[in-house]
């Protein structure tokens, strides 16, 4: 029994090489057995692939089913071009309106303290919890032939419903909270220190806004614009109620997809749909790029 304990295993006492290996891999008590991890990961990825990615892939496969020629014919067709133009016009009006509102509302809510602030924030979020169809309906009730403003409008020969102004209004409604709700948590976290410093150095209100606040929130603002634009271009339900589906005149891209689909012109429907899918992919790509590059300059809470 005189042998000293020379065979003691010292590796257990080595400190974990922290910066290089994630602690969780080393620390067996706070993770699961390997087979559990593999099973759960496989299940989650299968669900993602089968449920989210498969529909996306099928859009492109169906679009090219009748060949590349048919694809480009469907996109270059007159009504399709009119729909693309209308969608862009509507988004070019609706998005800037909501950007101005979002910035102003976030300024009021985050740079000042006043009563009913929480209520105001909740009210701004309201359009998200309203069904798109109801969002369209509210404007039919106001501007429709039987609506409150309808008779006056038709007397003055001004069309809102079944025309571009109605589509813009419905789009503004459904995309209303996007910019504001991205900026509010971000500006809340930034506080007012920078602005107060600028003010104390003699800057006036507008200088503070343009030279201090806007540069501070630019990436968050861009993020909000991206999401707002994607929804504005892709909105279907609300626009469908107010547009009247007049081909070449009040048909946005999503509505054009519906018309083609209901005419059993599937490959053309999927061809136009593939453009919208590309927009979605572009949006996701830019959004992820912003998150990876400027994650700290975006709102801390990533909720939609």
């Amino acid at each position, binding site marked *: 029994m005189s042998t000293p304990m020379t065979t003691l295993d010292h590796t257990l006492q080595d400190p974990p090489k922290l910066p290089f290996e994630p602690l969780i891999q080393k620390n067996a008590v706070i993770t699961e057995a390997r087979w559990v991890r593999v099973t759960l990961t496989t299940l989650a990825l299968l669900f993602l692939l089968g449920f989210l990615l498969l529909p996306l892939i099928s859009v492109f496969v169906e679009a090219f089913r009748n060949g590349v020629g048919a694809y480009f014919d469907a996109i270059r067709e007159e009504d399709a071009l009119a729909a693309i133009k209308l969608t862009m016009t509507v988004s070019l009006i609706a998005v800037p309106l909501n950007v101005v509102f979002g910035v102003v509302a976030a300024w009021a809510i985050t740079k000042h303290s*006043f009563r009913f602030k929480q209520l105001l924030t909740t009210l701004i979020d309201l359009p998200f919890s309203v069904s798109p169809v109801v969002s369209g309906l509210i404007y039919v009730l106001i501007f429709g032939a039987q609506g409150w403003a309808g008779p006056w409008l038709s007397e003055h020969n001004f069309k809102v419903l079944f025309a571009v102004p109605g589509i813009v*209004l419905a789009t503004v409604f459904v995309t209303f909270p996007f910019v504001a709700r991205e900026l509010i948590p971000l500006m809340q976290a930034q506080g007012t220190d920078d602005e107060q410093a600028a003010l104390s150095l003699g800057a006036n209100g507008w200088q503070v806004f343009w030279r201090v606040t806007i540069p501070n929130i630019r990436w968050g603002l861009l993020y909000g614009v991206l999401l707002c634009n994607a929804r504005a271009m892709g909105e*279907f339900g609300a626009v469908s109620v107010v547009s009247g589906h007049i081909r070449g005149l009040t048909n946005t891209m999503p509505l054009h997809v519906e018309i083609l689909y209901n005419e059993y012109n599937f490959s053309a429907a999927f061809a136009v749909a593939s453009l919208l899918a590309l927009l979605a992919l572009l949006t996701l790509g830019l959004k992820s790029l912003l998150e990876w590059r400027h994650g700290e300059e975006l709102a801390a809470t990533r909720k939609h």
Partner: protein
Amino acid sequence: MTALSVAPGSTVIKPLKHRSVMPGFGLSLGFTIFYLSLIVLIPLAGVFLKTADLGWQGIWNVVTSPRVDAALRLSFGAAAIAATLNAIFGLLIAWVFVRYDFFGKKLLDATIDLPFALPTAVAGIALTALYSGNGWVGQYLEPLGIKVAFTPLGVVVAMTFIGLPFVVRTVQPVLEEAEKELEEAAASLGATRWQTVTRVILPAILPALMTGYALSFARAVGEYGSVIFIAGNLPMKSEIAPLLIIIKLEEFDYAGATAVAATMLVISFVMLLIINLLQAWSRTRSGAKK
């Protein structure tokens, strides 16, 4: 928040606004309230004014008519099933993406937001193409006797598709911030891994999971674009409430359409209230300062 030192017990009438050096309060708040009222509040109030024309009996008659009743049942029932599926798979996906490492994780994480970015009409026709009798998925389900497209099951599929990111994106940040020390403590006190997960981790993320469920449910109830293509829209069978509003509008039955809309609005406002309460609960649970 400005800390006001007030003797306990004394009542102070809170001023509408605290004095501050920040400029532009009147202008920015005024514009915010003006624009909010013009675009959102006044039009929404119109729905309730219009519905009031009908009277309680009129609203009741519309909502309990067999076709409306069936549509409301389908919308809320399918939304509940879809939100439950999303809670299960959303939790699984959030767990896997926060806790495990695998190839392509960053890229796949970005695709979770696909249902937010993909226009609903595109999702609708794509899902219909996949699940119809000769589609990529449908051709394998049909021989098993499972018909998805043009049945209520199709409604559930579409609602699950659009609701998934709500659960993942609400649970993910909470799971990321969960303290690992608690798990180590549980393990060191002799808990099995299963006990730690169900008794320590799950209670901590439960408020977030419920918020995600409520958000996904609220979105599914009102969803239109992705559902109408796959639903088949048979009256009494696979017709959702938002579609019925459109049908009633096309028949110039404005009062009927508005009654259905008001019913849905009231329910979504209640949902919104619940979501806000859940989020407040979630914040106190996770100990965040804001």
